[in-house]
């Protein structure tokens, strides 16, 4: 199995604050992987570096066999990375349909675009809201819409930043099922998540970040039993 993503020696500091301290990380194609760590561990910064929103001070990012370290965000997206942010990044004044159009029109047009939009409306159960401004949807529906925008383009790698933030337990479970479904269709998934129950539901392997470096990586059971992890993370966060 090849690696879809390989990060080597990734380093980034803002003045004296080191947010990525030589991260070596790889993700095999088809994986479903979670990234955890206490607040300030560098999870979001790592995502920003992957997405090209920050330029690293050192290190390389290899995606799908080619070096994307110096590419701009939109160029990385075009190579098959897709992202869903913690705060729903949707176009609130535009209708649900327009949101989906903007997400897919670059890849599809005419009838195939229409088919895709219908498929995604089915998928998110938003058929009745097709012409509603996205800002009027419930928080959960907005999350769903953004997930649809992110996965409808059939990315090779899907990055999720706390996908279940603000969702009800029911919606969270549904999201987990959907992610398994997407993964089964061949999409590699990397998620930052706080909710350990959700991590258990979706992740096959987990990486713990601490102070901008990889602390440990393993299966969920290994991570939970790891004494160091309990000390730095679970002991404090699992209130």
């Amino acid at each position, binding site marked *: 199995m090849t690696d879809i993503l390989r990060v080597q020696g990734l380093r980034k500091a803002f003045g004296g604050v080191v947010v990525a301290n030589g991260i070596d990380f790889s993700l095999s194609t088809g994986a479903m992987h979670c990234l955890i760590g206490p607040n300030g561990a560098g999870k979001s910064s790592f995502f920003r570096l992957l*997405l090209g929103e920050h330029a690293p001070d050192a290190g390389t990012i290899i995606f799908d066999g080619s070096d994307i370290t110096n590419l*701009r*965000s*939109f160029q990385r*997206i*075009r190579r098959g990375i897709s*992202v869903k*942010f913690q705060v729903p*990044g*949707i*176009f*609130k*004044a*535009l*209708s649900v*349909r*327009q*949101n989906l*159009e*903007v*997400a897919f*029109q*670059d890849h599809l*047009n*005419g009838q195939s675009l229409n088919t895709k939009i219908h498929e995604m409306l089915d998928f998110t159960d938003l058929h009745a809201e097709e012409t509603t401004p996205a800002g009027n949807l419930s928080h959960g529906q907005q999350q769903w819409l953004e997930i649809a*925008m992110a996965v409808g*383009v059939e990315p090779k790698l899907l990055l999720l930043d706390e996908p279940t933030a603000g969702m009800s337990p029911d919606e969270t479970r549904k999201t987990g099922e959907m992610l398994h479904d997407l993964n089964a269709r061949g999409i590699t998934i990397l998620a930052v998540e706080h909710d350990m129950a959700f991590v258990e539901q979706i992740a096959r392997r987990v990486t713990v970040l601490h102070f901008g470096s990889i602390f440990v990586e393993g299966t969920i059971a290994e991570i939970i039993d790891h004494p160091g992890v309990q000390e730095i993370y679970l002991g404090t966060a699992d209130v």
Partner: protein
Amino acid sequence: MISSETTPRSRTRSLLARLEGPQTMGRGPAFWIAAAVAIAAAAAYPLTADAWTVGNAAYFLIWTFMAMGLGVVWGYAGALSFGQTAFFGLAGYAYGVITLNLGAAYGLTLVALVLAVAIGGLFALVIGYFMFYGRIQGVFIGIVTLSVTLVLETFMAQTAGPQWRIGEARLNGFNGMSGMPPLTLPWVGEDIALYPGPSLYYLLLGLVVICYLGLRIMLNSSFGNVLVAIRENPHRVGMLGYDVRLYQTLAFAIGGAFAALSGALYTAWGQYITPSSMGLTSAALPIIWVAVGGRRDITATLIGTIVVLAGFQSLTIYGSQYALVVMGALLLVTVLVAPQGLVVGAMTFLGRIFKKDKS
């Protein structure tokens, strides 16, 4: 064989389908009948008025291009440009310089018109490139564009000396250029010079209709989709794989080209152009038309512009300073009371009343 026949036709059909869409108000037979009636009334207008009044109405139409261009840049792409007059003025001067050098024969004034629009649009492309690729955002776009137009004004005002000439054309500093030929159509026998009057009016009316419909198609196309998405959330648009800077720059260049069209037509209409057309007061006027009409809808922008211009014109008989005070007050009231625009506000209000009546 069959496919080569159907492809262009189906392409035309899909273009026409773009005349309606979520980015533009007005759809269905009722709207298009009303639009046709409005155009017919506008076309019949010269029959009811004398040539001077018609020439004056042509003057209103000239400004609508700049207003619609600003509507695209500000209302749709979300970049508030305070300096559309820079492209207006530059194209106005370009038309003057080119026609004074080439003359009006063989339809060369039309070539000058096209060149002037191209120059204005190109300048907007360059300014847009520096702004958007320099990640300039929000208020800074306003300041930079305003600075550009004000510096251009100062520059042109300082060109009084005889050394400031381009070929035959003296720039004439503060007093501006004059004496350039009007638009002239080549015709068998004798060329037709379009002085302010019915024939110029019809030409402009045709241009307005073409530009308005063309913009509707563009705004409802995938390009327009991306523009409004950028207005709502540029970061997300980038994260969907679009080069946001490119779209913003293109929208800005289109807006600039429309302002340039107004500028070149203005020079051709009055046969003069002065540096004050790029000054602070002139720069404020397009903002007023578009804000008062409603920037997020091209139809509201068009209607608002014509109504405000007509109001401004009728106030000018008391003195332009009174008219400008009213314009300033109108802008304040719009921003405070109906930020989405008075025309849009009125449309929404009427819609609500209708709904109440029905229920």
